[in-house]
């Protein structure tokens, strides 16, 4: 775990487009999933003799199921608008990390097996056979894409690179090359209830300890209820919030907000995870199974509202996909979808983001703050990809950008945004999203963080910023690990609700 040796990029005022270095990242290969998780998820665990047929069949299946994928395969005109938009290309200079080139790894195979010119004259149309070398390249480079979709913002055809990456990973799963990190987590969340593998008794013990800490700190008995049937609100949050620093400080922030609002709320040991790594390989069935735990918990506890904590991709799944995965959009005749629909309170958005909830209470004057308690912090805000580009928040367009910033400004006095082209819909990924937050990809993660680190460094220099606030568990863990590589203190990252927690007045 001491980790591989590699050169950490140097911070510069602007993130320059690097001179390409072919093959610079060809050596990086995430660990392949062993038999255990592959069996559980219904995939083989090694390449069989028929791997090629399986791969082509799966590709055909996905092309048939997802019209979008076929359009993305056909529509690219190689204009190059995406080339310098990817943080992994900017940080590694490997030309295969240009989004167009990463997609071309699949597109050339698509042309060979699924288009007429590619079948009869492959050399004329840049079509190529699927070989083991190509498959290995897929594995390497589809795990150097965090599915952040920044390139898609600049694509004149709106090609969603993330969807190509997801398809690539799903085909790899089907031939026995799953990724260890993501697939082990998908097993734990289904077997134990969360990505960490935190069993119910450990969760209960952890929450009791946090209640003691909060009372010792504030003198107020703030609670963290677990499995309370009949509570009004079910909070689902990433399990890292129970386990890690700085995540836990946001969990404490949510609890204080609920306390100050006098809300009836609960966590669930069954749905003790908001995250849904099924998104990362785009496997609908897996994504549905993982999402279903939350529906089951909501039905069992009889809650009226579902609120989602600080987790980027969880919010995308909740906001954009829950309806068709587990809600009334999944099957209008499904009795459980109907029951949940009737049970939930129609006066509120379902699901609701914790930031929407807090901001609403701030606007109503329910929460009181002493902003000076955050005066030792000079804060900037990092927009997380899946919140920025994969979902929304609140009633207004762009609410996902404004609401977290509004909360920060309501609880702290010192706020400065980073450069315009690096935030909001143009935000740079932290470098660890989409299933890449694993030690075996540390080189990709450190190098991929370069554009964000440059933008952060600029506000550190100019505005004396010392705190990077955000609302995603992956971003929190990634920056905690990566900031020291660039000379920053790992403690200078934390959640928006950590700032809320510091300033909120309780009685």
């Amino acid at each position, binding site marked *: *775990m*001491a*980790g591989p040796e590699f050169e950490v990029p140097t911070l510069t005022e602007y993130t320059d487009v690097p001179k390409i270095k072919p093959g610079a990242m060809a050596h990086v290969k995430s*660990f392949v999933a062993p038999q255990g998780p592959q069996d559980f998820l219904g995939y083989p665990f090694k390449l069989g003799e028929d791997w090629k047929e399986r791969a082509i069949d799966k590709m055909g299946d996905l092309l048939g199921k997802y019209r979008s994928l076929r359009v993305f395969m056909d529509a690219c005109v190689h204009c190059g608008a995406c080339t310098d938009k990817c943080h992994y290309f900017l940080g590694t200079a490997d030309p295969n990390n240009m989004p167009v080139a990463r997609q071309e790894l699949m597109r050339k195979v698509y042309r060979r097996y699924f288009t007429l010119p590619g079948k009869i004259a492959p050399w004329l149309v840049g079509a190529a056979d699927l070989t083991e070398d190509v498959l290995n390249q897929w594995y390497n480079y589809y795990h150097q894409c965090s599915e952040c979709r920044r390139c898609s913002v600049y694509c004149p055809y709106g090609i969603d690179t993330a969807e190509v990456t997801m398809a690539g990973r799903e085909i790899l799963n089907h031939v026995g090359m799953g990724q*260890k*990190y993501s697939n*082990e*987590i998908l097993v*734990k969340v289904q077997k134990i209830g*969360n*990505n*960490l*593998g*935190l*069993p119910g*008794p*450990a969760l209960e*013990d*952890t929450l009791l*300890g*946090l209640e003691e*800490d909060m009372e010792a700190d504030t003198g107020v008995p703030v609670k963290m209820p677990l499995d309370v049937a009949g509570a009004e609100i079910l909070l689902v949050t*990433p*399990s*890292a919030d*129970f*386990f*890690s*620093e700085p*995540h*836990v400080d946001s969990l404490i922030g949510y609890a204080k907000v609920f306390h100050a609002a006098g809300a009836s709320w609960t966590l669930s040991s069954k749905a003790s995870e908001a*995250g849904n790594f099924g998104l990362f390989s785009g496997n609908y069935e897996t994504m549905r199974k993982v999402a279903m735990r939350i529906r089951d918990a909501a039905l069992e506890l009889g809650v009226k509202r579902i609120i989602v904590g600080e*987790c980027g991709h969880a919010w995308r799944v909740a906001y954009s996909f829950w309806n068709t995965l587990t809600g009334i959009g999944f099957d209008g005749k499904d009795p459980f979808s109907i029951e949940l629909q009737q049970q939930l309170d129609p006066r509120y958005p379902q699901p609701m983001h914790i930031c929407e909830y807090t901001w609403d209470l701030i606007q109503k004057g329910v929460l009181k703050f002493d902003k000076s308690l955050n005066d030792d912090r000079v804060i900037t805000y990092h927009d997380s990809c899946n919140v920025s580009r994969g979902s929304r928040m609140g009633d207004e367009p762009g609410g996902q950008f404004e609401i977290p910033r509004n909360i920060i400004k309501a609880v702290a006095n010192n706020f400065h945004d980073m450069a315009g082209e690096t935030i909001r819909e143009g935000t740079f990924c932290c470098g660890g999203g989409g299933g890449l*937050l694993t*030690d*075996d990809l540390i080189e990709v993660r450190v190098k991929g963080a370069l554009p964000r680190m440059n933008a952060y460094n600029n506000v550190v220099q100019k505005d004396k910023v010392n705190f990077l606030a955000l609302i995603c*568990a*992956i971003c*929190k*863990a990634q920056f905690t*690990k990566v900031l020291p590589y660039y000379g920053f203190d*790992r*403690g200078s990252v934390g959640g928006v609700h950590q700032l809320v927690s510091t300033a909120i007045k309780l009685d």
Partner: protein
Amino acid sequence: MATVNIAGKDVELDEEGFLTNLADWNRDVAEYMAKEEKVDMTESHWEVIDFLREYYDEYQIAPAIRVLTKAIGKKLGPDKGNNKYLYELFPYGPAKQACKIGGLPKPTGCI
């Protein structure tokens, strides 16, 4: 996967150097892992490892960071009951590095 001989006993490790069979753990294994991680084991390290193992025995998971810092703080004083102290002992991160040396499974997720 690799099998290494530690103090006369064959021990199987996964790609990341974690124990495949948790029952293989003993103090020699811990010393071996620590050496691989470039961590010099002192009494302070052992205090953390011992607590991790006790907690794991009861809950089948490593303790959350707050649980750990609180336990260390109670035992060794408030100046040591914090994340910074744990990072001084286990520079790669207390959660993963201490679990490895202590023979616990690697914690996974967004951590």
